[in-house]
């Protein structure tokens, strides 16, 4: 019963699912932010030490003064749960440090000296897109856009304060190497992170799909079991042949309703499986498949109804067996459902062959009720029912078309009311023979 409850609460479970897939990204975004905070702390100390060692005392001081308090404050914000403020503070701090270093080196050593520090904008840009997730995403976009603008502005600008002697060649090379290596490491780590997360999300999706399939399996079993026992009990009652005509009529009607409900469950199951599961190719024999379906339907029809197969050459094919089975079962089932028992030789004729392109062709022809021209174009619509006899669910042909779309197949339907219907299907063959 609890499974049923879950099943009925479709909206709820979808929301939960949506929330879950979003929360992976949000959690990851927060993790990255925290990691960046630690990294900023450590990197700034190391960077300051290196510069101090090489006598760049001003740069070292800027880095230390501007970084550590910001890093600590940002960490405090994060712990308080103010994630957006914490992230903005952290990123702002990194950018301010970059700009300050940039301006100081220009002012100390003249324009175009130490410009290589700007490469750090690249990992900061990517990092911004990573850390802002979920509802914070728009902040991420705005901030990343600002970074791009700022970077272009700094590259193009000629702003500097003093005009002291320029860097020596060695100093420039050292700066360039340090900056490039630092920025490259950060960028590579971010790219690896993005790949790992997308991989993880794929795995989660596959897992969710598998769980959903198990769930649909259990639900369809739990829903059908009681229904089928009612169906059996009804047929037991009908078998006892009471003389009460009215009672027999009621039982017959109840049986019809039960069958209808069962058809609906079957088709919802087929639809759900088709839309979720991937295609699995295997080689199988179409003729054997059709004969099995004929055998299952034999007891549904009168003795004079005939099931016929015509095959041209080999009937083996490579495709998704379960899906092709659903199509055949639907098509042959329709021919049976809309047969005309009043005519002399009611039949369904299945012709199997190949067309010029090598695609498998399946033609299902019957001499049943047929479909009028105006209804013909609607038969593939979801829940469209051409007759009011209450036999169909309006899902069968819709599912067939969905499956054929998935398998790159085609379907054509031709019908004359009162004379019968012919359906031509073609299915591409991939690497068969």
């Amino acid at each position, binding site marked *: 019963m609890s499974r049923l409850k879950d099943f009925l609460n479709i909206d709820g479970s979808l929301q939960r699912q949506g929330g879950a897939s979003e929360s992976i990204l949000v959690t990851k975004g927060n993790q990255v932010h925290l990691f960046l905070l630690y990294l900023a702390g450590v990197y700034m100390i190391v960077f300051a030490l290196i510069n101090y060692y090489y006598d760049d005392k001003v740069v070292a001081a800027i880095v230390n003064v501007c970084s550590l308090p910001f890093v600590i404050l940002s960490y405090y914000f994060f712990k308080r749960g103010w994630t957006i403020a914490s992230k903005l503070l952290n990123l702002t701090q990194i950018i301010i440090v970059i700009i300050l270093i940039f301006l100081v080196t220009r002012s100390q050593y003249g324009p175009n000296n130490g410009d290589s520090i700007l490469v750090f904008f690249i990992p900061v840009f990517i990092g911004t897109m990573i850390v802002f997730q979920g509802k914070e995403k728009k902040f991420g976009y705005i901030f990343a856009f600002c970074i791009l603008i700022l970077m272009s502005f700094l590259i193009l600008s000629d702003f500097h304060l003093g005009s002291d002697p320029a860097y020596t060649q060695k100093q420039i090379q050292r700066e360039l190497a340090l900056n490039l290596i630092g920025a490259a490491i950060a960028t590579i780590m971010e790219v690896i992170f993005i790949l790992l997360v997308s991989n993880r999300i794929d795995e989660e999706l596959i897992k969710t799909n598998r769980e959903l399939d198990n769930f649909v399996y259990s639900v369809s079993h739990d829903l059908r*079991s009681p229904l089928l*026992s009612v169906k059996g009990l009804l047929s037991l009652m009908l078998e006892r042949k009471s003389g009460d005509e009215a009672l027999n009529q009621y039982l017959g009607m109840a049986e019809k309703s039960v069958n209808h409900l069962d058809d609906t469950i079957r088709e919802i199951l087929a639809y759900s499986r088709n839309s979720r599961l991937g295609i699995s190719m295997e080689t199988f024999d179409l003729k054997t498949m059709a004969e099995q379906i004929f055998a299952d339907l034999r007891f549904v029809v009168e003795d004079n109804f005939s099931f016929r197969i015509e095959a041209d050459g080999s009937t083996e094919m490579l495709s998704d067996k379960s899906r092709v089975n659903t199509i055949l079962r639907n098509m042959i089932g329709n021919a049976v459902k809309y047969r005309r028992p009043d005519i002399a030789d009611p039949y369904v004729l299945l012709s199997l062959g190949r067309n010029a392109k090598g695609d498998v062709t399946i033609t299902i022809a019957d001499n049943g009720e047929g479909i009028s021209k105006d209804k013909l174009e609607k038969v593939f619509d979801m829940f469209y029912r051409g007759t009011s006899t209450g036999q169909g669910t309006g899902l069968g042909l819709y599912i067939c078309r969905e499956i054929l779309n998935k398998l790159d197949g085609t379907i054509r339907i031709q019908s004359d009311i009162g004379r019968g219907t012919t359906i031509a299907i073609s299915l591409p063959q991939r690497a068969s023979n």
Partner: protein
Amino acid sequence: MNNYLLVEDDEIFLFLHEHMIKIFDPTAEVSTMKSSLVAVQYLDDLIRNGEKMPDCILVDLNMPEMNGFQFLEFCSPHMNGPMQHVHVYMVTSSLYESDREKALSYSFIKGFKEKPLSKQVVDEIAALLKEESGSQSCMD
């Protein structure tokens, strides 16, 4: 006279199938078991004591504790020995082609039937039993 063993956890189906068989195969004797574990124990005892096996076993697929496939796994090694004349069918409400294929992959299984049993299916099962007992008595 055919001897049936029904293994099924759902009481209504057990009742229903028992009646279906008795109506359409009037001379049949039907025993029912609500759990495949009990059924396995029962068959095991029969094998050990060398007693007569049922002629036909109809087993459900989805059952708690031990499902239909696990039951078939139990039968498998005995199908060339003491159970060689037993007709085993799987009767289920499963719509999954993969279940049908898995069941039919057991060489000894006679069929995969949808619930509920109908007159036609009972007739078919009874006819096959009759055919085989005929050929057996010819051999004897």
